[in-house]
């Protein structure tokens, strides 16, 4: 009774990917991959996703530590808030970012007048949009690792005279490193595929804000074969990420 729907489910997940491989214009693939627009979109995607991941690690790891280690009132509310971008439609996230960080936004106004920084419709905006959407992946992964880590190692470090910061840097962080790496990889993959928040907040300008997903969407209307090629590249990157994650961190903690 269960096998039939299970097979149907599997086919549903795998067939579209197989279709992508079958319909791919394999003969012209090398030329198409070498096209400047493709390379430009790929470079922009990789740079923005990596930058967004760095931002997420720098802010997300301390945030996860706060949620896992420090008792404070409203901690459950904060944890719920952190996971909101996970379920929020990315477009809504993009609109929200515009309202706050846009040129006439609450914070954006001040950023522009005080520092001359404009976020919307810039590469910096792409990074902000991707970080907003991808951060929860990192926070949840790292918080889980922190909760699973044996806190008595931290106590042992404290009895040896280590301050809170030293304990975190020299004991906690090395112990939860697998969780941080897994979270960062997930975070990076999510940032790489980001579409909704990016196009809403950062727009779609070739060279500055047109990342791979945006290029795929655009190409689909003008040149379907190009869209397939771009999709293949994203698929290949995802598979590589998944494979590295499984082998190095998921199966052997």
């Amino acid at each position, binding site marked *: 009774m269960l096998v039939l729907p299970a097979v149907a489910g599997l086919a549903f997940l795998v067939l579209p990917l197989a279709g992508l491989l079958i319909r791919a214009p394999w003969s012209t693939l090398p030329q198409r991959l070498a096209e400047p627009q493709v390379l430009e979109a790929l470079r922009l995607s990789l740079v923005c996703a990596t930058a967004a991941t760095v931002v997420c690690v720098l802010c997300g790891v301390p945030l996860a530590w706060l949620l896992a280690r420090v008792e404070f009132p409203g901690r459950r509310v904060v944890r719920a808030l952190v996971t909101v971008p996970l379920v929020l439609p990315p477009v809504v996230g993009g609109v929200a970012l515009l309202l706050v960080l846009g040129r006439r936004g609450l914070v954006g106004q001040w950023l522009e007048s005080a520092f001359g920084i404009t976020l919307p419709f810039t590469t910096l905006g792409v990074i902000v949009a991707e970080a907003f959407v991808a951060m929860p992946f990192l926070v949840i992964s790292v918080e889980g690792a922190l909760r699973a880590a044996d806190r008595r*190692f931290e*106590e042992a470090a*404290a*009895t*040896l*005279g*280590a301050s809170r910061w*030293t304990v975190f840097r020299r004991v906690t962080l*090395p*112990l939860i490193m697998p969780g941080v790496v897994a979270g960062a990889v997930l975070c990076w993959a999510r940032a790489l595929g980001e579409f909704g928040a990016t196009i809403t907040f950062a727009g779609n300008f070739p060279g500055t804000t047109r990342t791979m997903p945006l290029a795929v969407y655009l190409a689909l209307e003008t040149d379907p074969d190009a869209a397939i090629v771009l999709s293949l590249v994203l698929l290949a990157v995802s598979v590589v990420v998944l494979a590295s994650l499984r082998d190095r961190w998921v199966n052997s903690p």
Partner: protein
Amino acid sequence: MTADGLRATLVVHRPAFTLDITLDVAPGEVVALLGPNGAGKTTALRALAGLIPMSGGHISLDGRPLHHLAPEQRPIGMVFQDYLLFPHLSALDNVAFGPRCQGVSKAEARRVAAALLERVGLADRATDKPRRLSGGQAQRVALARALAVRPRLMLLDEPLAALDAHTRLEIRSQLRRHLADFDGATVLVTHDPLDAMVLADRLVVIESGVVVQQGAPAEVARRPRTGYVARLVGLNLYRGIGDGTRVEVGELPLHTSEQLDGPAFVAFSPAAVALYRTRPDGSPRNLWQATIGGIERHGDNVRVHLDGPITAFADITPAALADLELSPGQRIWASVKATETHAYPA
């Protein structure tokens, strides 16, 4: 009263449990906190280290108050039950961790660590990660790591419990030597009377969060004051009322060689109890009729549980067991010579 060493009154309230003990340890002295599981030994140790907040009391070390300081500010070294060596650091870096936290340069910290590893006989394992060390080696690295911060108070939580019997013997004597070299105060927690007797200068026995007995190991072993301590040191113990050379324990008068009046304890070894199928001739001073409650192996001998006017253990040889043809439920005569008993004020 000296200001040196550790002087502590530890009060910790927990749901359904309160720890309230006073502990004084002189510099160079080793005190063992001995007690059954759940007595509060580890709670006391963690309170001394500052790892759990105290509900009351105070701690001072060499005259300086300690209880308001965070763990990292206390001049302590702690060896945990399962050592808690940092798995990502080599043995050397584990030992160098404390000095590094005290602001010593990396090179100097490593020099100190190498010297300590040498002292515990592990100079050749310095680059090994903890998972490659045996239990006994990990224990010695943990000790070196705790000594590396040059503590004034050394805390050891069941330092030998995780070791197998053979390693334990070896590490116990090494630990004794290292603790003898240490000039600060040492508090060690154990539930093993042998560890306590060998390692400690003084025993403090805790039951249900309070101190029930303390003294030199030989004194505690000779004059147990609770059933728990008596079982630990392997003695039969009774509380009664002394009247000259007689102590009334319930209905049974026990004759002793000591003169004693008022509340008193009487203790005697299970090996001092003789068993007879029929009422023996002559006149042993202490003779009573008992029922056999159970029989079990005890080392090379057999331990017979006796019910009756007093419950007692009797240790007899397997040959004697065969001669007597004992079985549970059987009625039997038991006797103890007055000179084999030991009475002391309660």
